[in-house]
């Protein structure tokens, strides 16, 4: 849910759209219709037959307007009918009381009669600046909070939790989740190997985030995840690999690029802008991953791309006529083996009519052709 009204010279004047980007750029008068428009689009996805609608959590940023994903999911809970509510996800280490996450997800799950998918994330480095959580504890807190939440969902209370980062004498959540043993867990990631290894061990779904890098680097991430599953003693299921990507469909390839490109650059140049210090605070990511990422990721993030040709050919997004989009998705799915597509239809400051047109064309002309290859489609804003 990007903030669509940054000034033209934002990227020249500010080194990040996160943490320190002045919130004087946020105008609640413009924010009111913007929130409601994004929620309308997610409701439209439900009506158009998408399998899921996704929300996520980021703080103090123009990148997205969802500091609380659970509030957005609550807004959608009673106005959607069939789509799963995919919360991608709660940033567990930010919270001193993980039970709050367990409770809110359980509330949503019971209200929707089990339509919730619970994502859990370590969160971007930027969140550790915004919430003053010590990043050297990020992984430990994530794992302990996860274990506590799963236990709160699956073990009859009350029980006590005496951990390293969390200690509670009484854990006894009401309500308990509707789904048994608990809502499915999806873990989005941007390529850190320790996350993939853990997700494979847990047999959860790994979602390759769209901001990671080019198609090839992301394909390698998915491949590594499959290897991790093999190492954990089983073959990865297609439905265990989620592929996040920006999609735009228009009548023709030319129209699609013309309509999409300026808004893509708004997103890539402004909203993804952050500093290496903010993105990789100390200890947030393992030393091996940081050394790799320092070389790879910060050089190849879309904000460093400069031409549409690079964006298009490296597969950062899929933009074109229904036929082009279908072909590329089938090609990618064939090469990556993903069974879950998490399509981001809203980009940067694209106007509502474009996003809606793209979603309708996708639902009508692309989605039916993906069903035979067993692909589920969720959309995020």
């Amino acid at each position, binding site marked *: 849910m990007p903030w669509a009204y940054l000034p033209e010279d934002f990227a020249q004047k500010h080194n990040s759209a996160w943490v320190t980007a002045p919130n004087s750029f946020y105008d609640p008068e413009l924010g009111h219709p913007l929130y409601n428009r994004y929620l309308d689009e997610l409701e439209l996805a439900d009506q158009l037959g998408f399998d899921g609608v996704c929300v996520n959590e980021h703080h103090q940023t123009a990148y997205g307007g969802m500091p609380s994903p659970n509030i957005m999911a609550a807004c959608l809970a009673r106005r959607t009918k069939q789509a799963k509510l995919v919360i991608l996800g709660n940033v567990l280490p930010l919270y001193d009381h993980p039970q709050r996450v367990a409770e809110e997800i359980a509330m949503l799950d019971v209200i929707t009669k089990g339509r919730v998918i619970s994502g859990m994330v370590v969160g971007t480095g930027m969140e550790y*600046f915004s919430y*003053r959580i010590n*990043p*050297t504890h990020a992984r430990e807190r994530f794992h302990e909070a996860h274990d506590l939440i799963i236990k709160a969902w699956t073990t009859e209370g009350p029980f006590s939790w005496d951990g390293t980062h969390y200690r509670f004498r009484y854990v006894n959540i009401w309500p308990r989740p509707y789904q048994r043993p608990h809502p499915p867990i999806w873990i989005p990631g941007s390529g850190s190997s320790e996350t993939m290894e853990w997700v494979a061990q847990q047999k959860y779904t790994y979602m390759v985030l769209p901001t990671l890098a080019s198609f090839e680097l992301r394909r390698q991430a998915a491949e590594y995840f499959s290897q991790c599953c093999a190492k954990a003693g089983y073959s990865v299921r297609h439905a265990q690999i989620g592929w996040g990507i920006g999609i735009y469909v228009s009548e023709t390839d030319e129209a699609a690029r013309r309509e999409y490109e300026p808004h893509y650059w708004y997103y890539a140049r402004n909203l993804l802008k952050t*500093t*290496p*210090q903010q993105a990789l605070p*100390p200890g947030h990511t393992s*030393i091996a991953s940081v*050394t790799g990422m320092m070389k790879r990721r910060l050089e190849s993030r879309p904000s460093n791309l400069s031409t549409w040709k690079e964006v298009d050919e490296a597969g950062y997004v899929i933009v074109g006529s229904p036929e082009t989009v279908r072909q590329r998705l089938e090609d990618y799915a064939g090469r990556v083996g993903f069974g879950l597509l998490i399509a981001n239809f809203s980009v940067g400051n694209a106007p509502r009519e474009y996003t809606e047109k793209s979603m309708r064309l996708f639902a009508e002309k692309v989605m039916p052709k993906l069903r035979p290859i067993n692909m589920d489609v969720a959309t995020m804003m």
Partner: protein
Amino acid sequence: MTSCKEEIVKVRGRNVKLLRGGEGMPLIFLHDPFCPNWLPLHDRLASEYEVFVPIHPGFAGSENGFEQFETMEDLVVHYLDLCEALKLDRPALAGASFGGWIAAEWAIRYSERLRCLVLIDALGLRLPAAPVADVLSLDGPGLRRTLFAEPNSPLALEAIPDTPRVDAIVGTILGRRALARFAWQFPDDPRLLRYLYRVRLPALILWGECEECVPSAHGRAFHDGIADSEFAAIAGAGHLPHLEASEECAKLILSFLRKS
């Protein structure tokens, strides 16, 4: 010139990298987080004292066992253990920046185990009216501007390059992680100020005159809080006067040590 020896000392089963040189009464120098090395200042001090520069837990060479360290208290106990391992009796204690913070925390608790205290642009105090820079949010050039009186001097560029040299990447990452563990966003202990009276030692407080990282109000507060202390401002230096004005610092420290 005294050249230092590098060795690994076992402290409670953990490896600690130790740089040492010179002969005489023992002096422990707790390094700043940016230059965990043997410096020209150490050579000068080693002309009269036996100087020990232990690398802090978590920094390259002493990273093993770092997961056991959570708080400043753990570091203080670590240095008591190190003193026992080295059989040091009432050493003089000096510390710069983050190392100065550890030294101050040590001195409020166990000053009877020390001979005297030197604090150089020490972190550790919480002064809401004089906040400390958030060094872990800064890039190379920003960090140099914050730490040095002359940010583009060869000395500054060598200490903090724009991007770390390839062979220094892991060391830089380890050092930043160790600093973050104890000093994320607020490198202080809100209780330190009120316990400074417990430092019952002669103390020398040195502060860079061009300090942009830890405002000089912190130096004044250390001076006000420690009864038997003297304060000296170092011209032409920022947060790291032991680097930028090492000769001036050496003179002041040596003359202080001789009389303490």
